[in-house]
């Protein structure tokens, strides 16, 4: 064995490995900083408080309709995805036979891998055209719920897995039924993880554009509370569509929408992390 050569290779490999790691980290952080910096600079430069109480008209105006529409869609999509998502996660972790649990986890992976535009197109053909709902809140919320569902299921599953089956067996041995064990012991103990997963899924949903283009349409009006037959506005549409318009006012509105999305996602992420940390304690 040629020891001096081996030593030289070791001496080169170590800094090379470190160099690649540091460079990769810098590239990722630089890309993130560039996106956030650009949105902050341009968004804050043109920001007016009146965007909160003015609706979009033409290529200018405010974002009241888009802000309320985003929250309205996120509320319904979270309501629609949280119940089946949490139920599937609870079943998967503590009640399902291993084969069923494996099948549910695989289905979650597949669903989370489906491109969001495909989910939007399925929503368009089935809900908008098939059921005749037209572009509406419910169609958009169902499309978003399909995106949120696997995240919530996996967060619930992981939250219970962290507790282990000792707690489940303890509850069953103390005379609780399987249903009581899951709901009164498991869900309560995993609540921080479940809430954190639900908020993270909501953060992902509010940042989606493609599925909503096919299902929610677009509206310059403030949502009137109807779920069917009325299109709804949302922030990602403004960010996606207005940036392509040849007018400075439209660009300003697009950056304002991006800035508000950034803040909304940040708030949801921070809340989710806070809850997750509370769950770990």
């Amino acid at each position, binding site marked *: 064995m040629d020891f001096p050569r081996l030593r030289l290779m070791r001496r080169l490999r170590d800094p090379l490995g470190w160099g690649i790691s540091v460079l990769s980290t810098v590239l990722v952080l630089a890309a993130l900083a560039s996106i956030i910096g650009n949105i902050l600079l341009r968004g804050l430069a043109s920001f007016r408080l009146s965007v909160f109480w003015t609706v979009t008209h033409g290529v200018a105006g405010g974002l009241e309709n888009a802000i309320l529409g985003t929250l309205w869609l996120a509320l319904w999509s979270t309501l629609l995805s949280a119940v089946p998502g949490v139920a599937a996660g609870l079943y998967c972790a503590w009640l399902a036979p291993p084969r069923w649990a494996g099948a549910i986890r695989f289905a979650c992976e597949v669903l989370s891998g489906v491109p969001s535009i495909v989910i939007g197109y399925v929503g368009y053909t089935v809900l908008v055209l098939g059921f005749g709902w037209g572009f509406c809140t419910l169609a958009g919320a169902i499309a978003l719920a399909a995106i949120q569902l696997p995240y919530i299921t996996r967060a619930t599953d992981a939250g219970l897995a962290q507790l282990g089956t000792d*707690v489940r*067996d303890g509850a069953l*041995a*103390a005379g*609780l*039924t*399987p249903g009581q064990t899951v709901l009164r012991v498991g869900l*309560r*103990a995993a609540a921080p993880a479940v809430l954190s997963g639900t908020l993270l899924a909501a953060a992902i949903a509010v940042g989606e554009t493609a599925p909503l283009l096919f299902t929610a349409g677009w509206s310059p009006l403030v949502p009137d509370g109807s779920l069917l037959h009325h299109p709804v506005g949302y922030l990602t549409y403004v960010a996606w569509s207005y940036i392509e318009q040849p007018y400075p006012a439209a660009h300003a509105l697009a950056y304002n929408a991006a800035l508000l999305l950034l803040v909304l996602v940040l708030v949801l992420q921070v809340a989710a992390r806070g809850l997750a940390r509370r769950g770990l304690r």
Partner: protein
Amino acid sequence: MAQAVSLPTSTPIANTQVRMADAAPGAHTAEAVLEACGLSVHYGTRQVLHEIELRIPRGTLTALIGPSGCGKSTLLRCFNRLHDVNPGVRVEGEIRINGYPVSAWDPVALRRRVGMVFQRPNPFPGRSVFENIALPLRVSGVRGKRALAQRVEQALQAAALWDEVKDRLHQPAQALSGGQQQRLCIARALALEPQVLLLDEPTSALDPVSTQRIESLLQELKSRCTLILVTHHLGQARRLAEHTVLLDAGRIVEQGPTEQLFEAPSDPRTAAYLSRAE
């Protein structure tokens, strides 16, 4: 094992409200509270218990000893049908408690009469000391704040934990020390006034002081219910148990009075195991 059916509530074992006095040891000292006949357990295609024949006398502590993986915990989980939640486990043969086959019992009612304490303390996370005991009581039908508080206090006193936690009943159970958590789990099981208490290596995760406290507690609990203790510590079995059962590779090697089994084993495999383990 047959599917669960509820026994008529007039039968003594189906009535979860039967008083502890019914199971008092004095009246039926020699009577078997629990019997296993031809009990076999399969994990998928692997058989882990073979034709177990066992008789647990009422009001005693019976120790299940044997090398790791011999099937002690598997046997214990047959007594409260905890294997029912695992579809990969198949149980054959019969277990009778007070003469009634457990297969004919509703598993939830059975577990309220046959309590269990596990190797690692497993209090319900996110619930207070009080709630850890009150929840099983509440779901088993105990109503009223005063009745609940009384039963919780009785259980904590029976588990020798009351004096240590009476001022922090509403604090999280997970803030207690490991030994206190294990006594809380014992209190949780005792709160339902079980006739049989299954203990799966309850001191293996504890320090010597906590172990000592739990051993003293188990001595006291013999007057309340029949105890079945899985343990790796032969000294613990010898100190606590009136009867000992030695298992090896899923089969009973020998069972009998503890002193006799330790001092004059009738099977050479028992002598070999005891000399190896000691």
